[in-house]
């Protein structure tokens, strides 16, 4: 199985994990139709029936929904930073900036600066407290659940909690497989003064 693309020179040593376009299985081909599908799809393509089940779920969890884009990226970047996922933090730093978060807000989500130095909205602060609890390894207390419920509707808490879980799944997946950051993302991070 060949590496995905020539411009991903660091893919060579992943070539047994990532499926290139010339070897894309039949059920995976729609994901390659527009070019490089990215390393998450290229890895899941090894198991096509898993790919075609996982992607709609991941799309529903991480993609556009009833909760606004900015809020979802707050959750994704923060969760990924707490999980120590280099690939997800880098990829979603770019997405978060595109979603309108400021550089300081992104730095705070990435734990580079204090949250209180970048966020002031009580609703977002309550959400960040909740994400820190859910993505952490400690217990989830009734007090923590009550605190987020005071600022967010029940269905929003459910969706955002599912988003933390889906992000953690991807965090461990990307970290375990050492998925490579794409060259476009690396270049954008350099431009923004982030790594």
């Amino acid at each position: 199985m060949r590496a995905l693309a020539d411009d991903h020179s660091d893919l060579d040593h992943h070539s047994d994990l990532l499926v290139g376009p010339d070897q894309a299985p039949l059920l995976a081909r729609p994901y390659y139709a527009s070019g490089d599908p990215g390393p998450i799809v290229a890895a899941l393509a090894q198991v096509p029936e898993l790919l075609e089940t996982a992607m709609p779920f991941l799309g529903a969890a991480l993609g556009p929904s009833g909760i606004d884009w900015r809020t979802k990226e707050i959750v994704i970047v923060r969760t990924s930073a707490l999980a120590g996922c280099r690939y997800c933090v880098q990829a979603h730093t770019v997405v978060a900036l595109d979603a309108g978060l400021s550089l300081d807000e992104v730095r705070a989500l990435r734990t580079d600066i204090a949250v209180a130095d970048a966020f002031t909205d009580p609703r977002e602060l309550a959400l960040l407290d909740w994400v820190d609890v859910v993505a952490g390894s400690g217990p989830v207390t009734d007090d923590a659940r009550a605190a987020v419920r005071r600022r967010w509707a029940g269905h929003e808490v459910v969706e955002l909690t599912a988003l933390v879980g889906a992000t953690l799944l991807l965090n461990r997946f990307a970290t375990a497989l050492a998925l490579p950051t794409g060259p476009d993302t690396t270049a954008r991070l350099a431009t923004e003064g982030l790594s």
Partner: protein
Amino acid sequence: MTASTVDGPIAGAVAEGTLPGRVWMYANYHCNIACVYCLTESGPRVAPRVLDAQAMLDVARQAAELGFTDLGVTGGEIFLRPEMPDLLAEISRHLPVIALTNATLFQRRLLDRIDVLAGLPVALQISLDRPDADANDAMRAPDNFAKVVAAIPELVARGISVRIATTVESIDDVELDRLCALHRGLGVPDEDHVIRPIVARGRAIDHGLGVGAVVTDLPAELTITADGAFWSPFGPTVHGGLLDTDLLITRTTAPLSVPAKALLRLVEGQPRGADSALNIR
């Protein structure tokens, strides 16, 4: 159990011709010879990647239950597995079987054990490419021709159904006439002789042989291997020691309904008759 007594989407698709009726199994990938056009780079020193006997029995039983009508068993050289005669007899209790072999291992001991197939719905499809030993063996292996023409009458005499498969880039009418005269003389009638092109996959690529084949060129015959389920027996090929996945359907092979239904979804997404262009069978 026959397709006419089975309900369900697979049985319906097979009955109306949307889905081919045969399910293939790659019993193993190792082989005692190394043909220059081999799809799977099979040879004596490759990983066997055996589809174990219970898995093959399960495929056979579930294929019948789903409404498929036939089974194919290929490799590698399947008779490198000592249990193969008994295993073929067992799976033929579920559906008729075509088993592909190079017929170079049919010495006395194997011939005695293969008697169990006499009278059963099992046909051995034996490769014979040319009517002359030199031309035949150049593509296959030394002494291949002599072993094949010795084995076929022995098998026919035992009441075992034999088919001949000729795999060539091209063959002129004179040579084909001589080849057909040869197989008739060995006891194999014309209706049991198939001619098919070399497909440019596996080792054929390295020798510049074969026709390029994409998914729409190949019949959608569900093919089960130790590595997953594929679109066609021309799917689970090996090149450079690596399994090709471009015709992979699912890694899941059991229950058989998982890849069968995925294959049906794929088939229903393409125009009927799109597989007929290259006569790859």
